[in-house]
């Protein structure tokens, strides 16, 4: 319609047209609304940061979550009731995460929520979910979510928390390599919580902190910190950072010859970063993990996940964070099976009583804070000479058993 045509239309026709247009506009997005069925499939909302800096991890979480769903459905579901995954991009933003959680709960009427990869997003999703009485199983590291202020009976935490992870690594490296410890810490919540975990674990070995350096998130040049670290002559350098920062640190530390003088330990040694960085920079570096595909020799459940993943994704193996997507969904569906339905209170009771082996041996949710009590792996990155295949990158040097003594106590967290 050109502007000239408009001028020849009478006002009445125009108003009619406008009314029609408005009606069409109202009707059009109806297909965008999802059907609001109360029975039917078990719907699980899955907000993860599919785009942004952690997209690699998040997309793997989605792939693994889909495997858990498929496995449940192939086994016949819950008396024939199938499960369905509703993936949303939380954009690594808590506001977006909360909005998506509202959408999933209010509009899609999901039965459960699972997901997220950043502490702040998971806390906001948790806040929205607990207000509305929807069970949320978080798969992102956080210490706060265990604490009484954020916890509710609807809150579950399948992921590790910094206290467990850093504790496991600390208890392995400190007695082995020495008491003089240097800290290089990314200056945000993740770095601080991890460093706190190392310090707590270090107390029992009487570690001596020789230097602490904080760096901003996304630092590219770490070499300026190294002379100070070398001058302090530590036995162990604890580096509390994540993702690309981790890769940059090990690359530059290797070039600088730091490894000749000290051992380097990360709270979390990422499979994806090791693949990206290659064997050289990571050689001899220690770190914790929730999962490594090599566990399949020991645990049938790990083999089950790996095989399903290999079959679907070109013989690739799931990453550590990706596998959490599987475990998170798996636990929820096991709970629903045990409860015989999706009623929140029944599922909560079932989850609290549940002993499950999702992907790496036995796990259970501690009653007071619903933290998944689970094993923590301590990994050492292999030198090139020992690498046998593309994904053969780590040695599992220690497996901290799934015991509550490695968690902060319920009293410490403020639970009654």
């Amino acid at each position, binding site marked *: 319609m050109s502007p000239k045509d408009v001028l020849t239309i009478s006002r009445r026709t125009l108003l009619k047209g406008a009314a029609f247009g408005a009606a069409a506009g109202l009707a059009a997005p109806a297909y965008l609304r999802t059907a609001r069925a109360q029975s039917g499939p078990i719907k699980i909302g899955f907000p993860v940061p*599919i*785009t942004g800096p952690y*997209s690699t991890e998040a997309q793997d979480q989605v792939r693994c979550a889909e495997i858990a769903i498929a496995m449940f459905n192939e086994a016949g579901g819950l008396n024939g009731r199938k499960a369905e995954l509703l993936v949303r991009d939380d954009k690594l933003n808590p506001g977006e995460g909360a909005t998506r959680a*509202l959408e999933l709960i209010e*509009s899609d009427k999901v039965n459960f929520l699972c997901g997220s990869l950043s502490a702040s997003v998971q806390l906001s999703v*948790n806040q929205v979910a607990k207000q509305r009485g929807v069970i949320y199983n978080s798969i992102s590291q*956080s210490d706060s979510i265990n604490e009484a202020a954020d916890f509710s009976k609807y809150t579950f935490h399948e992921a590790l928390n910094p206290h467990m992870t850093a504790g496991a690594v600390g208890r392995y490296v400190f007695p082995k390599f020495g008491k003089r410890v240097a800290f290089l810490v990314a200056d945000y919540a993740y770095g601080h919580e991890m460093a706190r975990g190392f310090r707590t674990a270090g107390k029992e070995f009487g570690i001596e902190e020789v230097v602490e350096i904080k760096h901003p998130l996304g630092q590219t040049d770490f070499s300026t910190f190294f002379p100070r670290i070398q001058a302090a002559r530590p036995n162990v350098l604890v580096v509390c950072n994540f993702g690309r920062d981790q890769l940059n640190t090990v690359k530059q530390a290797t070039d600088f010859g730091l490894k000749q003088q000290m051992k380097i330990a990360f709270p979390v040694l990422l499979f994806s970063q090791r693949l990206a960085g290659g064997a050289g920079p990571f050689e001899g570096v220690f770190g914790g993990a929730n999962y490594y595909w090599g566990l399949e020799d020991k645990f049938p459940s790990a083999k089950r996940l790996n095989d399903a993943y290999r079959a679907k994704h070109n013989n690739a193996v799931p990453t550590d964070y990706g596998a959490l997507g599987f475990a998170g969904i798996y636990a929820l569906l096991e709970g629903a099976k045990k409860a015989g339905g999706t009623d929140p209170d029944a599922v909560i009771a079932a989850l609290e009583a549940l002993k499950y082996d999702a992907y790496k041996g036995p796990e259970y949710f501690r009653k007071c804070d619903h933290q998944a009590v689970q094993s923590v792996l301590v990994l050492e990155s292999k030198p090139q000479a020992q690498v046998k295949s593309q994904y053969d990158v780590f040695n599992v040097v220690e497996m901290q058993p799934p015991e509550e003594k490695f968690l902060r106590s319920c009293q410490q967290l403020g639970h009654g």
Partner: protein
Amino acid sequence: MESNTRPAATAKAGPMGGLVAVIARHRVLAALVVLAALPFVTPYEALAVNILIFGLYAMGFNLIFGYAGMLSFGHAALFGLGAYGCGVSIAKFAIPWFLALPIGIAVAGIGSVVIGWFAIRSRGIYFAMITLALSQVVYYSAYQWVSLTGGEDGLRGVNVPAIDVFGLHFDMLDPLVKYYVLYALAAVAIALFSRILHSPYGAVLEAIRENETRALACGYDVARTRWLAFILSGVFSGFAGALYAIHLSVVPIETLNYFNSAEVLMITLLGGMGTFFGAFVGAYVYIMLQDVMTVVTVHWQLVVGILFVVLILFFPRGIWGSLLKWVRA
């Protein structure tokens, strides 16, 4: 720059022009009618609330950007101060919502008085940079003050499960009820905003934008008028922020991030700077596009980015601004 502070004067003959004139004369009513239908033209209610809130935020931003002609790059601080002011009152001090809301507005108001006082003496890019720098000061203060703001984890626990006014009970966990409660609060702000634009003060503001020297010669205090515009703009942004805290029951630290300042600029440009409806049109298009595209493809940023470029290229006055021009031509 299209402006409709004096709609009657700009209305021209022609069928569309007549309609536009009617709408322009009753613009608050028109805006409220359209916004009342918003939950039914969005995929879900929470998104409609976001559009309402960001529309309100862009409306406030438009006062300083569109009507006063100054590009502020620090409005995230004012939005965020409103959100934290209201959120902290509720979550940490258990203050009821009807007091927390004005506290949020007051905190944002104080913030804009201070930021405005420093920034208002500069022009153009310097004004943008100073507002940006000061908003970053607010960002890092909130980031460090963990005991009050929750720091990087954000503020949780802004619980407003229900609102009772005059014996009426509103269940805020019902998405539609929540929308209309916030809508009613927003309506007051929209009416007030329109009144400000209609006032002699609104006219002076545009006079300064069009010709500062002349306005000065006419005896208007340019610096003070601008400062007041910044403060008013901040108050409206803070009000939007306070509603955001109540809406999501959390306040993410990202509300204070400079990215949030860029978003409101984008919304205003998309809708049409210096137009009354532009803010809401922009918010609708900006938020809806992102929301729908993220579900469709992981490459939503590419698609949305191209669409924005196309919109800015072909609608340089923004969607609403270009529509107005087209109708009045």
